[in-house]
């Protein structure tokens, strides 16, 4: 005899407990979740959206009254500025080009970064996002040291100190909970960060550092200049 319902188990990514749903034969296979508290979209969300938008427009308008968009001399292919800079969001890349050969800095690394971003949600390794040090502490430690060692060596080989520094600082933070065990506070919080968190935070740090260097600290011949010596 066939049952008139199926039992399905589902694990919602956001909440820890496993939910069990009884799905009747003819209804859509969907797990309803009514545990979160709901509010009416109007006015609760709509009003906030309007306020946020208006504040943003006001800030933009004030900024536009104070600071003028730059306009230099008419384009002149004969006259190359030194340094020639792309807009700020590409200066991290331009900084990479300074260290690596063009194929690596201009093509492979950015392509890898975009690909890495795309595949993030398809890593099913640690969907509950458990802390890095939760299990296999010793193996984790060894893997981490080896991995960071190799990455740092390669970076040192190309003299990319701008990436070595954030890498080592991050590793320092990563290792702190391994050596100093705490139940509460900052170190305990660090200990609960999953690997994905560390990788992303490292990525963001590198992007910010490289972009900042390219924007504020690079002058003629892409040489190091301090911001007070002029921003190019």
């Amino acid at each position, binding site marked *: 005899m066939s049952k008139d319902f199926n039992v399905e188990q589902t694990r919602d990514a956001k909440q820890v407990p496993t939910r069990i749903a009884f799905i009747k034969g003819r209804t859509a296979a969907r797990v309803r979740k009514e545990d979160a508290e709901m509010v009416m979209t109007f006015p609760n969300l*709509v009003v906030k959206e309007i306020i946020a938008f208006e504040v943003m427009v006001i800030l933009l308008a004030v900024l*536009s009254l104070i600071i003028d968009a730059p*306009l230099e001399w008419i384009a002149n292919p004969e*006259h190359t500025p030194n340094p020639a800079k792309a807009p700020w969001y590409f200066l991290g*890349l331009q900084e990479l080009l300074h260290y690596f050969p063009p194929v690596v800095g201009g093509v492979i690394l950015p392509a890898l970064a975009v690909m890495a971003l*795309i595949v993030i949600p398809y890593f099913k390794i640690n969907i509950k996002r458990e802390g890095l040090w939760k299990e296999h502490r010793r193996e984790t430690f060894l893997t981490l040291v080896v991995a960071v060692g190799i990455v740092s060596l390669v970076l040192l080989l190309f003299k990319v100190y701008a990436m070595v520094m954030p890498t080592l600082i991050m590793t320092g933070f990563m290792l702190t909970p391994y050596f100093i065990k705490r139940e509460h506070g900052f170190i305990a919080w660090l200990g609960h960060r999953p690997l994905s968190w560390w990788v992303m935070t490292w990525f963001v740090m590198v992007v910010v550092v490289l972009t900042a260097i390219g924007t504020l600290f690079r002058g003629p011949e892409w040489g190091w200049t301090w911001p007070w010596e002029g921003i190019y």
Partner: protein
Amino acid sequence: MKSLWQRLFASQVWRSMFRHGLPESNRTRAEAIFYNFFLHIHPTKVRKRSVKFSYTWGLGGLSFGLFIVLTVTGALLMLYYRPSVPQAYWDMKDLQYVVSSGQFLRNMHRWAAHAMVAVVFLHMLRVFYTGSYRPPKEFNWVIGVVLLVFTILLSYTGYLLPWDQLAFWGISVGTNMARAVPFGVGDNISFLLLGGNIVGENALVRFYVLHCFVLPVAATMLMGIHFWRVRKDGGV
């Protein structure tokens, strides 16, 4: 006074436009959402947690807000701009010195464009750190990454249009980067983008078409899908 308003809201003309009454009860509040073309992208109820500003920082909404500001100011700028060499540059000068509020218009467009790159990036970080990319939201994250790339491309194609030194050399540096793609592919990409081997008038027209038509239309469609999927994936 009050009765005047009430008569207005009850009048046939008003009711032909807005079918619901004043949003005073939960029923009419729900109607205010789903009878409205623009608002019905929202569900009538949302999770209390996700409305909290400190959860999303409003960054996705602000990305869209900036896009709207850019569309409006961009359309106005198009009235004064011709994508030809050297006219493009003189049109910029006219915007600065001849057109009323022209400089202000240009400033708004410029700063909103820079802000959008930053805000979209921050939105991505918010989504990451709240873990909102996990199933069933995987594909919306992917759409988001494409949107980030499009946002940067929009900003970048616009960068050439003033045809000043900043524009010319900024684009030259970038397209030289594209040339580094091996096996001659890079040269082809760069040739396709510039309509030639150097940044010249062909490049200006191509960037203009990309910036004012192709990319905004593509980005609008992607945003539509992005918002639709936020709901289909179960809301924020």
